[in-house]
């Protein structure tokens, strides 16, 4: 039976995609404002906006110093770091999923996070106080790059990457990195342990304006570059030979995606620790809604990841006030049910 469908097979298409982007951008602004206001001391949204506006204007006269400190010095960098980490990890996950055409790909599966954590923990314990923030981030970046290079070297044959080997090598490297990190942790003296734990649990609680800088720059830079590569990424996601046939320089694109994902992951992990699940699930959720076209998936993944992690961070602070919960518990607890619902919808669309 030849059945002609007049509408796109994707849940959201055409003009409704633009509406969705605007709605998510608005949701991000609202979530950030709310999240800055809510905490152990609640600040009304009006006052939050007042403080931020004063800083943007550069005129701090008339601000209550305590409110100013809570809003501008403590909460704003924290909430923005959550947004940047969510956006960056989602983009990193998208890169790796496209690169290896494996739906399970995320920074964790490929050992990037484990490598970054190991690098950071080595820097934290051996360098002690001598290691400046940029040194730890640099070590995290080197760690993630080393783990990626090892994984890809193990999984390639004659220049072609084997998907299954890639996943298996990545899992093995991740375990190895985790084991070494654990070993170093046991050797570390108690004064260093707090810093080490920070990397492993993943938290935006310690965020300050300077810690926000590296992940923000990394995310903006890679997003700007990758947005120009959306069409070639579409081609690559359907096959290497197909992409080559469509005029894509496959090896260069691969290398770009590899560098972009490791830069993003290292930058985020070095400032917010190993936050799982976001990089895996956000690109999938977005694809289930708008289809696999990277020109749509990329901006939406950035926005969705940012909104999601801002809300998750809010939940970690409010569920058990005044105690904070680890961020990783909530990324999965809030994200997984929503994702499973979307997955059911896909089966229906495929008929």
């Amino acid at each position: 039976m030849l059945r002609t469908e007049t509408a796109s097979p994707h849940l959201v298409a055409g003009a409704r995609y633009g509406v969705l982007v605007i709605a998510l951008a608005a949701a991000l602004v609202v979530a950030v404002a709310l999240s800055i206001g809510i905490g152990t001391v609640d600040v009304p949204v009006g006052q939050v906006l007042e403080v931020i506006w004063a800083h943007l204007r550069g005129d701090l006269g008339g601000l209550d110093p305590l409110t100013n400190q809570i809003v501008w010095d403590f909460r704003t960098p924290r909430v923005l770091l959550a947004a940047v980490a969510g956006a960056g990890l989602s983009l990193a996950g998208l890169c790796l999923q496209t690169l290896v055409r494996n739906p399970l790909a995320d920074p964790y599966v490929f050992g990037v996070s484990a490598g970054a954590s190991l690098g950071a923990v080595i820097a934290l314990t051996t360098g002690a106080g001598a290691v400046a923030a940029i040194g730890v981030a640099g070590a995290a970046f080197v760690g993630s790059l080393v783990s990626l290079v090892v994984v890809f070297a193990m999984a390639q044959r004659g220049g072609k990457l084997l998907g299954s080997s890639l996943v298996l090598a990545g899992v093995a490297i991740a375990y190895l990195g985790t084991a070494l990190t654990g070993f170093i942790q046991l050797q570390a003296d108690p004064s260093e342990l707090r810093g080490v734990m920070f990397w492993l649990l993943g938290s935006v609680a310690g965020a300050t304006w300077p810690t926000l800088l590296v992940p923000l720059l990394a995310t903006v830079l890679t997003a700007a570059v990758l947005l120009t590569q959306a069409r070639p990424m579409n081609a690559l996601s359907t096959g290497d030979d197909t992409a080559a046939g469509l005029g894509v320089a496959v090896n260069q694109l691969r290398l770009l995606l590899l560098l972009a994902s490791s830069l993003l992951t290292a930058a985020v992990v070095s400032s917010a620790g190993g936050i799982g699940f976001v990089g895996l699930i956000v690109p999938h959720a977005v694809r289930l809604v708008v289809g696999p076209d990277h020109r749509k998936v990329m901006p939406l993944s950035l926005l969705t990841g940012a909104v999601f992690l801002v809300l998750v961070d809010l939940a970690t602070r409010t569920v058990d006030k005044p105690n904070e919960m680890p961020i990783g518990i909530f990324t999965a607890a809030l994200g997984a049910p929503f994702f499973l619902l979307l997955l059911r919808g896909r089966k229906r669309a495929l008929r």
Partner: protein
Amino acid sequence: MKIDVRNVSVTIDDTPILGDVHLAVEPGTVTGLIGPNGSGKSTLLRCVYRALKPKCGTVHIGADDVWRASARQAGRRTAVVAQDHDLDNDFSVEETVAMGRLPHKGLLERDTGADRDIVGAALSRVGMTWAANRVFASLSGGERQRVLVARALAQQAPVLLLDEPTNHLDIGSQHDLLELVRDLGLTTIAALHDLDHATAYCDNLVLLDTGTVIAAGDPASVLTEDRVSEVFGVHSAIVSHPLTGRPHFVTAPAADTAAETE
């Protein structure tokens, strides 16, 4: 556009895959690549569409050396129906065909009305307009191959390369597809397994075995009983096709022949 492959050799992991291959295809003709599994058909095609750089030798399309031009330029000259299409994503048929516009578009350039017209015309040419909004992966094998040919058409390249395009298709779809490809009138190279299809739909054939060209030329001169028997390790005979009167290959396992002749 003329395709000219000269002295091409390919080595992967120290294993020679192609050795000193020559191949010339005249504009507007269809050339069939035939040979056993692992004889180098796909590798030769990959050299032509710039997915694989040969260890030595050159590939010219028209006057231009493929490896001196950019990947993008190659995408405007050669369109490919490859074997590796991933079915684990939900691209619609229209989105799949629109990918053919890739080598013509700038970094952030959007699809224009002209692009949509080209995509629509390509879908209509292969008779798949009705499926524009279906998910590509949900189509049958024959329908998918037609869509991939439409994508190649949207690429507006003068050269069409097909890597075993009739694999997994039912007999009717195999003929439909090859007839479609034949009628397009593009300069075409197709790797094929079915010798009768190769004879019926190709102007010229190139027979490959273990990475070297055994014979090249018109189908009748390339596919002789002895050659087919030797290269494919079977016992073969040419009979007259009862429906078309064209030469038709019948084959039997080589072992049966041995038993017979003893």
